């Protein structure tokens, strides 16, 4: 049965009406119209649905919405404001500044179809928070061996992702 649930999504309080066991993904997409996270496997095997819960990557396709209550949910739509807050950017600057990871994804022309890339960028945020200067081997390890599963890209953009993570890392360290 649907219940009223209060969430904190991309820095804003949002009230949704949803069954408690509904996966967060469907609440974000269908109720809040945040379509950055996407349905891939639906069983935490690919990473297309990844979002941050209190700065930790989760697979929103298997995370019940009830689990997100009291935590900060961040999707790619919210990454620019995460960066603006970290850097203390003015409102004017924040409005025209993407998160360095998003900018690097554009500068390196990473997406082909782009379906998996929302999750890839979320994984990059998590990686760079823990390791600001990852080597190629460490990037490959993080995107492959971090539980619960590898982040999969069927178009095969892995090389571009590595380029973009390193580019973003440089900007974020500066």
């Amino acid at each position, binding site marked *: 049965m649907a219940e009223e649930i209060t969430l904190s999504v991309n820095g804003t309080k949002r009230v949704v009406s*949803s069954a408690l066991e509904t*996966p967060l993904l469907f609440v974000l997409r269908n109720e809040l119209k945040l379509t950055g996270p996407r349905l891939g*496997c639906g069983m935490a095997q690919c990473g297309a649905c990844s979002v941050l819960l209190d700065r930790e990557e989760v697979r929103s396709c298997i995370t019940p919405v009830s689990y997100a209550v009291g935590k900060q949910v961040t999707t790619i739509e919210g990454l620019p404001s995460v960066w603006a807050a970290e850097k203390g950017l003015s409102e004017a600057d924040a409005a025209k500044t993407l998160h360095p990871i998003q900018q690097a994804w554009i500068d390196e022309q990473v997406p082909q179809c*782009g379906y998996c890339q929302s999750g890839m960028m979320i994984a990059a945020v998590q990686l760079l928070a823990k390791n600001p200067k990852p080597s190629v081997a460490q990037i490959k390890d993080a995107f492959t061996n971090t539980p619960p599963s590898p982040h999969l890209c069927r*178009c095969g953009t892995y090389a571009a992702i590595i380029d973009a993570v390193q580019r973003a890392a440089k900007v974020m360290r500066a």
Partner: protein
Amino acid sequence: MTVKAETSREFPITMTLTRRGFVKIGGALFVSLYLPGQGSATRAAKNETSLDPSQLASWLEIRDDNTILMRTGRTETGTGMSGYYAQAIAEELNVRPETISLLMGDTDKTPDGGYSAGFLTGMSNVRKVSAYTYQALLGLAATQLGVPVSGLSVVDGIVSGEGRSISYGQLVQGQHLDLKIPVTGQPAKSDPAGWVGITSLDGFTVTGDPPMKPVSQFRIIGTSYPIPSIPDKVTGKTQWSCDVTLPGMLHARMVRPATLGSTLISVGEVDKKQFPTAEVVKKGNLVAVVSPDEWEAIAAARSVAASAKWTEWTGLPGSENLTKALREFKWGAPSESKGKAADVIAALANASKTISASYEQPYVRHAPIGPFVALADVRSDGSVTVWTHSAQSQGLRARIANALSTPVEKVVVRWLEHSGQYGRTTLGGDGAEGDAAILSQLTGKPVRVQWTLQEDLAWSTVSPGWVSDIKASVENGRVTAVHSAFYSPHMFDPRPLGTLLAGMPSSTSKPGGWIATEWPYDKIPNRLEEAYGMPNLGAESVSGGLRGNIMRTPGQRQQNFALEGLINEAAALAKTDPIQFRIDHTTEQRLIDLLNATAKAAGWGPRPSPHRGARRTGNRAVTGRGVSIMVRQNAYWVGIAEVAVVPATGAVRVTKFTIGADCGKIINPRQLDRCMKSGVVMGLSEALKEEVTFDNGKVTSTNWNRYKILTMEEMPEIKVVQISRDDKGFGGCSEAANAIGPPAVAAAFFDATGIHARKIPLTSAYVTTLLRS
């Protein structure tokens, strides 16, 4: 009034520029197509393209704000076509590419039909449309400025001459101008009894020869113009096909049969206490659960599926018996044959050395990260609108009209981006669109059908498994004859699953083989290529069985694995370096140049394979290197793989891959770099991991732990070599890189172990068996 374009005397074309009238606000030049001798294609094809008469069927619009809109039925598939088209238009019109926007794939808003696989024909269209328009704009400017066309020059959309200048926007301001340019062809049509179920895949083709900018003057083609859709994809603003919602829309989840051939015995109703707004909808063997709430549809469908009863069916051989099943089939005569049989048979019979080998690969599949999704709105007035990410909108439209027995002019297909699909919808079928249209017709509401990954990996079309018997004669270090025979279930059955399960009209599956190889070795004097076709495995079933479909670099990917494997075996027999051996068998200088450049980049030192330390036993890794080539669509490819094999465990790791391409004039070097590297990843995935498994009734590789694809950690260092040529036209380079990996990896495996790997994927289980045999 008709404005005569002054330049029209200089080239034999029949374009006409007409001023329809003056307008108070705005103004634009609309470029539309017409079929010479048949009046306007806009009118002739009105029913076919379902255009809103108030909106011209224009291909290109030059607007008074100096922006340009291109409308094309061809679509972006992730390989950058939307960027290349903008570059080509900008080049011919002398404008900045940023001023161009593209509207793609909507059948009611684009005039030309066509499909994403036809990049070269699409590129030719785009360039010619722009070239005609450029001439018309020059004519208008000549009149406005009082300067002859020969005295005009254009930079960034500003026409200048004799000290005066005017922008394209100013030229069209306050006017409504029509430019009609000549075309041939038609949008894709339903052809239920035909080879793939639709015809006219390429849509309209522009005719005539308008003057086009010489390659030497290109300023935009050849630069790394960024793909316009990327910023929105990265920030979450893109509307994907899975994001479309309509008022009153129902979410559907399908309840599929127990096996590919099971028919429905019974299905219960939903438990209304648990799922108050969900309903079961069915037609024939098509069963779904719909609900206004997506999660309720999912949960209720699971519950309904658990109690549904289906008949048993065991019409598949089981994937472990695939080779046996293919060998036992009575193939009859080849579906296609090229070459001189008598000469080849004589050469093989008289040769001092011959090679005879069989190559094979199991079923593989497109396996998009995003399972298929579609939304359909079938109204009581008979109109049908389908939202899709199909790569062949007009073809899909024809199939939907055929399935619903609806006139095609009642059907509109709207295209949006979604997960890559690698050829799966090139023929306008396979996807959730059939399900969605049928369910919307049954419920009278808009229905969004989202397949699950398990469903996508079990029920979508597949790239069929195959075997190839290939023979060669070798005399004095040269191949004198090649005979190849390729056996495979056919790869042309993209029928939408929903139409089959519901028993609605669909096309007929037409078994047949196909020779896709473009022959690179012109110095081999005798060759005979044969392709044999058979029906889908399990064809005699309600679903059509394992429906074969084309997949990235179709046919050639498979056949090139066998051919390049044979050439590597022949080089080893001749004790010749495999790159030199290839150079010895071709006169094609582009290929020879590319082989040399790629070898240099890879640090290749000439020697025969296998290398002296090759080993088939032991716990320590042995290393090897191997090469493969391919010619396809005016493009040349070379791949050099370096591998490490641990014989005791059968573990194969690709440690480095160097890929070279010459595709004539390179349009966008950075995107080509991206396509080459990502193609290598997909190719290595096939070489090392991919296999569709099935038991006697159903596919069993239905999640990412069972259908394994390459991960980032398994990707080797990839080096890229590009050769751009100004005098060879454009080549097709977006897709083919995937085909170059597997034969190079197999050659490197032989170099390392001394054992020919004639089958992929090189899983540890297969490799340990192979090395012990």
